[in-house]
């Protein structure tokens, strides 16, 4: 009967295409919006992931990475003294103002790395060497600085500009994940960054640390928090803390959540209604099958097969279209787009829910169907 079910499905081309379009649209919308949403979340915690260190130590009341709450300069030594810590280095993070030779001003995120180890350095350099940060007035900018501050003609290796009225010379261009706030990052040594920063009593933003190889990171993180009274977070914890803050304090979660929910509801409504109509219009045929000896269970199986067949085809096409969109629109990193396996599984689960719902209302109709309908 599977053959009959599939022929019935594909034979009614108009309804099949309408059903397919509804499910495809639903999948595409959920995947596309979900991927953009997740891409934004990745951007929001890029200030953490770009540095790629195990443990972050800072003020215990911090809510997210961009919200700097300076801590005492002695914190570095205190963290180093915690058992299980292999190393701990200072990090400066602050907002600065860059003035270019052409007179333009740009806001930047200033990052000060430990000069001896350069821990927290960008993983990839597009031009120059990160080690050159140790040379006088040297800074490294990210690729977004090139884009936002005047293009490759203006921002390139060798360009001299001012940060808070002090000279800075670009020695390299790093490739990093875009920041949620879309502010370019400028890397310098810790000492130089604090020299660029406006004078204040505390200039240490974070202490970056690593657990010894034989020590669980979580345990060392907890120990640092206990012994220093500061906030200590693993990279993952701090990333999630930042994502949760963004979700709570911006409209992103609600906006994307609403769109995704709408996609789900629209998909469910279209699929459910079309499938129900499909069943109702074939009611006499189903009644005839019932009269000829097909059990309600056999008919239910046919309906389920039809629903899930069109669902899986719609899933494939929807994923394909969303991926194509991501490839074309987000390939250069201009648009946050991160299509992940968990998202695809969630969408697949949602689609199964839609198909189950659609099939269920049709099966309920069929279960109540008196085969005597064929004699009317």
């Amino acid at each position, binding site marked *: 009967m599977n053959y009959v079910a599939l022929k019935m499905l594909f034979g009614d081309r108009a309804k099949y295409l309408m059903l397919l379009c509804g499910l495809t649209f639903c999948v595409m919308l959920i995947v596309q919006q979900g991927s953009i949403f997740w891409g934004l979340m990745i951007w929001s915690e890029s200030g953490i992931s770009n540095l790629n260190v195990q443990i972050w130590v800072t003020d215990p009341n911090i809510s997210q990475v961009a919200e700097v709450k300076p801590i005492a300069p002695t914190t570095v030594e205190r963290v180093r003294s915690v058992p299980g810590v292999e190393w701990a280095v200072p990090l400066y993070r602050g907002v600065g103002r860059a003035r270019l030779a052409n007179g333009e001003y740009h806001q930047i995120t200033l990052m000060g790395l430990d000069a001896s180890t350069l821990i927290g350095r960008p993983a990839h350099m597009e031009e120059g060497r990160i080690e050159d940060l140790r040379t006088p007035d040297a800074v490294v900018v990210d690729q977004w600085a090139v884009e936002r501050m005047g293009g490759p003609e203006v921002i390139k290796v060798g360009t001299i500009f001012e940060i808070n009225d002090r000279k800075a010379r670009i020695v390299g261009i790093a490739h990093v994940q875009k920041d949620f706030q879309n502010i370019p990052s400028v890397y310098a040594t810790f000492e130089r960054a604090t020299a660029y920063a406006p004078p204040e009593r505390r200039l240490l933003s974070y202490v970056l640390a690593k657990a010894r190889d034989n020590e669980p990171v979580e345990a060392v993180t907890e120990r640092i928090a206990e012994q220093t009274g500061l906030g200590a977070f693993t990279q993952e914890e701090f990333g999630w803390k930042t994502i949760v803050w963004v979700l709570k304090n911006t409209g992103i979660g609600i906006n994307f959540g609403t769109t995704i929910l709408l996609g789900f509801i629209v998909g469910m409504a279209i699929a459910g209604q079309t499938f129900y109509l499909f069943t109702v219009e074939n009611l006499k045929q189903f009644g005839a099958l019932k009269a000829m000896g097909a*059990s309600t269970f056999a008919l239910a199986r046919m309906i389920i097969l039809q629903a899930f067949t069109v669902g899986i085809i719609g899933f494939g096409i929807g994923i394909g279209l969303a991926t194509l969109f991501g490839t074309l629109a987000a390939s250069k990193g201009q648009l946050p787009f991160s299509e992940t396996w968990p998202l695809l599984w969630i969408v697949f689960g949602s689609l199964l829910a839609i198909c189950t719902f659609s099939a269920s209302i049709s099966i309920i109709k069929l279960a109540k169907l008196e085969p005597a309908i*064929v004699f009317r």
Partner: protein
Amino acid sequence: MERDMPTATVHAGEAPEGPPPAVRVRGVVKSFGAGDTKVTVLKGIDLDVRMGELLLLVGESGGGKTTLLSVIAGILDIDAGQLDVLGVPLPQLPGGKKTTFRGRTMGFIFQQFNLLPALTAAENVAVPLLIHGTPKKDAIRRARTMLETVGLGDRTEFVPAKLSGGQQQRVAIARALVSEPRLLICDEPTAALDGENGQKIMAILRDVGRSPGRAVIVVTHDSRIFHFGDRIAELTDGRIVRVHSVPAAHSRGAPGADAASTEPPPAPEESPS
């Protein structure tokens, strides 16, 4: 043979003595609704359908013909009375077994054909076999053979929309016969057809009725096909009011009684007491 039995008065549709009937209905009552809206459609039906006969069930609209057909098919449950189909007390079978019994022993022909529009003629005919688990290849092969039997060997790959009404009904007949049912139930099989096609369809059904071990029940309003029946049972207001045999000269394909004949129905020869 029972079809050659002389006409005789019988009690409320009972068959005269002979082999067990294909269908035996005794005192069957069927109502719909409840309370003030309750309507009793069948008010104590007594009727036998013999093996090897084509019984025409006639009567006014709303008289209960379709309900009786549904009851005999086991599609509707009865409220009271006794119903044996092919020797099986149908009301006593549980739902699932009733469905299986119906699928294995009965064939149906509907007024509106009820062919699946997306399936070819051969696939439509194969459906009853597929329902009972026959492998598709075998089912299609048997369906093609059956279509040849009803004269549609050259239309096996046509979808219903490409067939005329008469051809569609012949496909429906092939579908009803492909699983070799012992009881063929037809609801107004000629209602959607022109006179000529109606005669052809009835000729096929008459031949089916003649084959041993089979019985055919046809509900109809069409007086032009009355002569194809072996007996005619008249149902009015929920009761069998008259059962009469059709003279052999009219019912057995004798000269003047072939498929093209449009003679008026024979006069009643039997009546219930």
